[in-house]
C-alpha cells in the first residue's frame, strides 16, 4: 500500500484529503506544519508528499526544498490556493512534480497522485 504524507496547516484540508486518499486505498500520514513534515518524511519515508504553500513558520516552498535536499528522488505535489503563474514556475523549478490549485475536485487530486506515482515506478 503506497504511503502519502499530507502537509497543510488547515485541519479541514488535511481531513478532506485524508478521506479521499484513504478511500482510494492509500495509507495517509498528516503533518500540520513544515518541521513535523520533515521529521515524518525522514521517519516514515512516504512514496509521495502533498503540500500546501502558505504555511508558517516554514512555508511549503521551504518544505519542498528541504525534502528534496534529503532525498533528491522525493515525489512532491503542491496543492495551493495561490494561482499566480510566478508561484507555479518557482515551485516547479524547485522540483515539484505537479501543481494543483485549490479548491480541487476529487478526480483532479487522484489523477495527479496516480500520474506522479506511475512516473516514479517507471
Amino acid at each position: 500500500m503506497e504511503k502519502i504524507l499530507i502537509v497543510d496547516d488547515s485541519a479541514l484540508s488535511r481531513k478532506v484529503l485524508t478521506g479521499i486518499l484513504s478511500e482510494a486505498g492509500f495509507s495517509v500520514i498528516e503533518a500540520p506544519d513544515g518541521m513535523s513534515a520533515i521529521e515524518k518524511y525522514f521517519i516514515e519515508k512516504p512514496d509521495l508528499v502533498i503540500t500546501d504553500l502558505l504555511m508558517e513558520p516554514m512555508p511549503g516552498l521551504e518544505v519542498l526544498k528541504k525534502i528534496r535536499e534529503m532525498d533528491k528522488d522525493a515525489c512532491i505535489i503542491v496543492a495551493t490556493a495561490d494561482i499566480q503563474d510566478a508561484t507555479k514556475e518557482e515551485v516547479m523549478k524547485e522540483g515539484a512534480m505537479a501543481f494543483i490549485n485549490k479548491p480541487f475536485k476529487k478526480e483532479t487530486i487522484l489523477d495527479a497522485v496516480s500520474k506522479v506515482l506511475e512516473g516514479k515506478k517507471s
Partner: protein
Amino acid sequence: MILTDFQKYAIAEVVNIAFGRAAASLSELTGSRILLKVPKVEVYTIDQLPSALSGILNGEVCAAHQIFTGQVSGDALLILDVKGATALTSLLTGEEVESIGTSAKEVLIEVGNILLNACLGTFENMLQVQITFSVPHLHLHQLNHTINTLRIGNEEIKYVILIATSFTIKDSNIGGYLMIVLGVVSLDKFIQCLNSLGKDRLL
C-alpha cells in the same frame, strides 16, 4: 454564539482560496507578485470589537466597505490603518504616496473591491449561498466611528468574523483586517453552510 475550531478552519480555508484569487488579480493589475496570508480567524460581537482591536488599530483607519444581501446578508470591510493604507498604495502603484488623497482612495476602493468580491464570491460558490453586492465605499474615520456605522439600521445583535491578513508585495509586509459583519439569522445560515463544507465541496 461561538464558532467551533472546525468552523474557524473552514472559514480560514475558504478565505485562503479567495485570497489566492485576489492575489492573482492584484498581481495582474500591478505586475508584482503578491502574497496574501490568512493567519487568524476570530468571532466577536460588535460590542467586543473595539477592545479586541485596541492597541492594534489606533487613530484613523481606512475601511473599504461593501454591503451584501441575499440568503446571507451583512457588511464586509477591509480595514487598514492610515500608515498601512498609504504604504499599500505606494507599493501597488510604484509611486510614493504621502497621504490618502482622491487617487489613493480610488486605489484602496479597487483593492478592497477585489478582496471583498473574492471573499464573498468564494463564500457564495463554496457554501452554495446567493449573494448580491453593493457598490463599495471608502471611509476614513476613527475606528470607533467606523464600527458605529455598522450598528445603524436595526437593533439585531451583530457578530463580526474578524480575519487578520497581511499583504506581502516586493518584500514589504502590510497587515490589515477583513471583517464580515452578520446578524444572528445570517450567521446561523452561514454556519449551517460551513458545516456541510468538505462533504460536497472539496478543498
